[in-house]
């Protein structure tokens, strides 16, 4: 804590903190706004690709929010969507190249879905709705919050799908280690199929709404 109080808003004021935490619950991009569902189905079969995908989206949303926010007073209004696309596409290509260079096996599993981060509505949505009208620091917080919220849901879904469908976590044979197979336990192969990702997401939405009454629509 500094002794002299800064004239402008503190870095982690209540309002700024809520930028970070709101997307994690009450304004979650997947479970409340129902965005980015397509990739949530595709890459949540195993935990490792889900974590890498979550991190990639986190990096891209944060950086894209920061860059567009820095440029927000320079971007001609008529081509702003194109500018946003160029920024996001450039970042995604960078992420793809880095993944190919350093985590080749995961990058192969993610295949086209890294490229499809460009079309992830969460990123374009945050730029258009938030960072074009807010300061860089707030935009970074907003990007971090939304990226983390997206990645968090991916990881929860992938955790259950890999554990129940494959009996492993991060390829470590957890179920075998617990000795459940000897008791007649069998993996549920259906968990590995895409529809189960939707059902797991739906269960998360159910739990979330049960715990947060403000999200429940009034009839």
């Amino acid at each position: 804590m500094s002794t002299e109080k800064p004239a402008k808003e503190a870095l982690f004021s209540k309002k700024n903190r809520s930028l970070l935490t709101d997307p994690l619950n009450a304004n979650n991009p997947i479970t409340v706004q129902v965005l980015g569902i397509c990739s949530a189905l595709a890459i949540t079969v195993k935990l490792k690709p889900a974590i890498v995908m979550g991190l990639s989206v986190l990096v891209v949303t944060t950086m894209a929010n920061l860059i567009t926010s820095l440029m927000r007073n320079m971007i001609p209004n008529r081509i702003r969507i194109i500018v946003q696309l160029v920024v996001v596409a450039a970042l995604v290509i960078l992420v793809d190249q880095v993944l190919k260079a350093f985590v080749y096996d995961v990058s192969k599993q993610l295949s086209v879905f890294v490229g499809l981060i460009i079309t992830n509505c969460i990123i374009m949505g945050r730029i258009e709705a938030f960072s074009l009208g807010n300061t860089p620091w707030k935009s970074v917080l907003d990007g971090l919050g939304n990226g983390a919220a997206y990645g968090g849901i991916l990881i929860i879904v992938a955790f259950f799908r890999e554990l129940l469908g494959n009996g492993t976590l991060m390829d470590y044979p957890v179920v075998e280690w617990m000795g459940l197979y000897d008791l007649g336990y069998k993996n549920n192969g259906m968990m590995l199929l895409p529809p189960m990702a939707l059902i797991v997401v739906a269960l998360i939405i159910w739990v979330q709404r049960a715990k947060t009454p403000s999200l429940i629509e009034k009839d």
Partner: protein
Amino acid sequence: MDINSNKYTYIFAVVMVVLVAALLSIAATSLKPFQDKNVELEKKSDILRSIGVEGTDVDALFAQYITEQLVIQNGTVVESEITAFDIDMASAVSLAVEQRQVPLYKAEVEGNTYYVLPLRGKGLWGPIWGYVALEGDGNTILGATFGHKTETPGLGAEIATPIFQDQFPGKKLFTTAYEGIEVRKGDAAGEQQVDGISGGTITSVGVQSMISDCLQPYKAYLMNIAANTAAPMVDTLGLTADTTLITAAL
């Protein structure tokens, strides 16, 4: 300057695109060596996997087990300006069989000689590829691995899983003449047949034609090895042992 004027918009767009293009080219060029190394390591570990060797230090294992890398054309070993490892199978298989220069990897594992042949062909949606390892007789399959670019997950993509690949060890490429491996629908029984994948018929057929097509250039070479090792292969003792087993089973 008015940021919504036409002039500004054009200038902004041009500057932005040039900057982004420069940034991406720099990134792509500087990361290229790492990416190429990954591709090379994957190729090496695919070759090793077909002879049943797996490990983390792929470079060292490859140097230890792969003793010779030959270039084959029309069934004979030829001198080529390009090394066997660097041959691009995709362009090799597009040539006529007689013109193809294809690699052959000779491996030594615990005193046994194995031959590893690369495969490349067409699946349903895109390319499929693989390696088939042969035992010292140049005929019996020791192991096979397959990969694919975009086959349907759960159907055609199953060729890359052990369920499909584990059928290959012990199968034979030829009896009297070169015949290859036939992918059957559910009733594979013979030494030259494997079961295809339900719902992945086009990919399965792709595997069959890939094997038959890619092994053509090696035919004479392999049959030569087989002829040279034929004498010790006909083992009367082994045969009687087999018949006894079969009678016992009956």
